[in-house]
């Protein structure tokens, strides 16, 4: 049992040589490839991550630009709608004013026409009355009339007037 703590120099040297040779050979034939592949993959992941972040930043930039453009378009549309509404209101008022003016003009014209026709009718009636009166007077003068004759004459005149 006392040999437990007695180092064997030969075994030590052999173990050191064995271990160092194994470390060298594994580095050359195993770890080099594995570490290389691992680092390559990590670089690829980092690169993809970087690209994804850049793409995201670009997308956010484009989104912001589009939102700005959309807001601008919305504002422009609102302005144009307001302008169109104002223009429509003005045109409506103009049309209403025009129509009112036209109606008034037509009304005035109709009144004038009515007045003219009324005057004309009155003149015609006056002429007819004058003529009838003259005719009646002629009849009165021409015949010796009594009351029945006078009445008959008036009736005749009136009939003539009616017939006309």
């Amino acid at each position, binding site marked *: *049992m006392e*040999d*437990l*703590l*007695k*180092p*064997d*120099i*030969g*075994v*030590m*040297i*052999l*173990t*050191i040589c*064995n*271990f*160092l*040779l*194994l*470390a060298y*050979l*594994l*580095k050359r*034939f*195993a*770890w*080099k*490839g*594995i*570490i290389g*592949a*691992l680092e390559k993959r990590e670089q690829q992941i980092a690169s993809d991550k970087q690209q994804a972040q850049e793409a995201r930043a670009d997308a956010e930039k484009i989104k912001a630009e589009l939102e700005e453009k959309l807001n601008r378009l919305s504002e422009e549309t609102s302005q144009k709608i307001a302008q169109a509404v104002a223009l429509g209101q003005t045109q409506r008022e103009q049309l209403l004013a025009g129509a009112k003016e036209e109606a008034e003009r037509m009304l005035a014209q109709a009144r004038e026409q009515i007045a003219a026709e009324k005057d004309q009718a009155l003149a015609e009636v006056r002429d007819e009355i004058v003529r009838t009166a003259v005719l009646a007077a002629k009849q009165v003068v021409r015949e010796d009339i009594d009351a029945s004759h006078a009445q008959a004459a008036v009736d005749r005149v009136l009939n003539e007037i009616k017939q006309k």
Partner: protein
Amino acid sequence: MNVADTIAHHILDHNWGITLGGISLPITTHSVIIFSVSVVLLCLLAWISRPHTSRAGRLLTTLLEEYVSFIRDGLVLPNMGAEGKGFLPYFCTLFLFILSVNLAGMIPGLKTATSNISVTAALALCSGGIILYSGLKFHGVIGFIKGFVPSGTPMWLVPLIFPLEVISTVIKVCVLAIRLFANMLSGHMVLICLLLIIFIVGQMKFSAGVLSVFPAMGLEIFMTCLELLVAFLQAYVFSLLTAIFAGSVIHTH
């Protein structure tokens, strides 16, 4: 053969007595096991690291990559910083080698070479070499020697501090060897002692010996599980402490 001899026979290394030109070669059971483990590791890892088309091959490659990531991100970079990246292959080999040799002792017929002080001392010397190389590589000879004295130490304390720090570094390396040796040895001694309970009790009374098989085997299974844990734990501790010591030399006070 008494109990002590039985235990010693199982634990101790055996020289095969091979000589070359009258000089006895250090061909022992432990050195043969170490060599065999090395050959198996080399062939297996070289095969795994090759490009594979089969699913199983790719799975093994991925497992190996995960192992390398674990050593790099769990051991080397946190303790040695970016400067330790060049030492990654060494630590990958160190952990796997110690673990494989530890686990080889669990296979019936094989022995745990790490329960041999010569083997653990050799591994500790390699780690000492790495610590020394790290210091010399990153600080040069003068810088490495200066690193033993913390900055701000009064001049009159330097003659006291310097040898203490040098001895401390040497002790750290020695402790690496002793820790691994003692842990692996004690586990196996306990396993053998538990088995010997059956025979000792059986010599006293045969029927009692037969009955003692059950508690002894239960304890044996428990200790074997513990040994498995210790095999992983000691490989990790050895590698971690080597990385910490090398890191402390690279990043001095």
